[in-house]
């Protein structure tokens, strides 16, 4: 797969989550604990995007955030199935699946049954469905390796694949999640941090329009904390969208040459 950081073979290190003992990754009273991968609390993993990962698809994209690697292909617009009722707006069909080897324990990916509907809900507000009546667009996402924050990566990658397929959208959709560990908010959590989290917040938004298309919160939160978390995520989303946009520009400029 393209874009693997050449220096450290990160994929070959055994995942720390397979350790049976509960290793405290942070101390409640310790203010200066360090994240397992050495990032700051409000620092995202480096994002890597590449469009055109699958030749057979109308559009596709590959994304890599640390150990999280996903591939999304978009097919269509194609004629809706005959059994479907007439619809003067287009249909969006989303599916998220995991490879059997994506998770530390084999086949654990089937736990995420709700990801498909979450992906659908995040994208439907951004796509201009009126532009392809009576037809269906398929979005298939495959998580090659689960390294935490899987859903946000899938959503961002899917919107890039849709753009690559030339589906009209109001804006790119960027998504960022955040974990609450004790008193701290850590952005873009890895798998290990997610397994210890006290709460989680996920935002999908269209940064240029400054609109939230999807928002989920788990765990106990006070209102100021939600404010803070949302602001952090929205900032990160707008930065992420810039990276996605530059990836698209790069792709078109290389194809023109």
């Amino acid at each position, binding site marked *: 797969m393209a874009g693997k950081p050449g220096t450290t073979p990160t994929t070959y290190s055994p995942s720390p989550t397979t350790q049976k003992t509960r290793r405290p990754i942070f101390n409640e009273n310790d203010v200066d604990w360090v994240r397992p991968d050495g990032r700051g609390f409000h620092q995202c993993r480096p994002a890597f995007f590449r469009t055109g990962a699958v030749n057979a698809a109308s559009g596709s994209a590959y994304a890599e955030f640390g150990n999280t690697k996903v591939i999304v292909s978009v097919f269509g617009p194609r004629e809706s199935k005959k059994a479907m009722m007439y619809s003067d707006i287009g249909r969006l069909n989303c599916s998220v699946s995991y490879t059997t080897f994506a998770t530390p324990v084999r086949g654990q990916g089937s736990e995420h049954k709700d990801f498909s509907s979450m992906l659908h809900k995040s994208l439907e507000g951004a796509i201009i469905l009126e532009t392809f009546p009576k037809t269906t667009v398929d979005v298939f996402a495959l998580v090659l390796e689960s390294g935490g924050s899987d859903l946000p990566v899938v959503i961002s990658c899917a919107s890039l694949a849709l753009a690559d397929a030339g589906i009209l959208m109001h804006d790119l959709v960027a998504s960022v999640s955040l974990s609450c560990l004790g008193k701290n908010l850590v952005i873009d959590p890895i798998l290990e941090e997610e397994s*210890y*989290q006290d709460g989680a917040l996920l935002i999908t938004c269209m940064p240029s329009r400054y609109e939230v298309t999807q*928002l989920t919160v788990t765990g106990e939160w006070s*209102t100021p904390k939600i404010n803070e978390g949302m602001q952090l995520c929205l900032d990160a989303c707008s930065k992420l969208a810039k990276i996605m946009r530059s990836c698209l520009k790069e792709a078109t400029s290389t194809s023109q040459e």
Partner: protein
Amino acid sequence: MVGLSLGEKHFIQGGIAQDIRSDGRKRLTYRPINVETGVIPQANGSARIRMGATDVISTVKAELGKPISLQPDKGKVSIYVDCSPTAAPMFEGRGGEELSTELSVALQRSLLGGKSGAGAGIDLSSLVVVEGKICWDLYIDCLVVCSDGNLLDALGAAIKAALSNTGIPRVQVAAGASGDEQPEVDISDEEFLQFDTSDIPVIVTLTKVGRHYIVDATTEEESQMSSAISISVNRKGHICGLNKRGGAGLDPSIVLDMISVAKHVSEQLMNKLDSEIAAAEAGEDES
């Protein structure tokens, strides 16, 4: 799918804009809530909630099980929702399955707290009998009998009522078992422990129609929504979960405004629900 004519759509939207809805309610008024408890004798606890034509049943079954090795001091709770096709033809096949998963996940997110168990409405450590060996597994199963909008709020209320109605048998652990042996237990069929439900949050769904939001939307009103946010709030006024439905984007400031409105509404709902549950429990004891 709700078949509405253009005139009916305008009537609903216009009514909401003028703070008087088709059934005469204001924007932030709930339909009367009817609570019955102990409706399923086979279960450890059960409740039926009716809000207008929305009718849901929730049951709690407790079974002895083994805690997972990563969390030896916690019991297990699982929540499932079943949308039977007897309620509406669109629940048949995949449509019902999708809605069931969506509702189950939303309820788990709202009631069970984060991965570490912090902020959970149900205290998982109270379910442990012998640490690392025996715990109670609570199976919360909900059934949608009839759907007329606002399912999530009704299911949340039904689970709260069912848990208030739940009695968990007292367990005597035989002394002497040591080491790796599984201790023998004696389940009492006379003594039951009540469940503390004061921390369980209520779910308030705000449905945005036009520029206004309404609570407790009917199916017809839901068909006109641009987006909806379900917020679960506990007695302390903390947010325990949040879900968004509907594709349309929302400005972050509107989201925050909706959260503060939901917090305000939740206080009234919480008090009303508590008194309804208490009345239902008292009524059941008498009969």
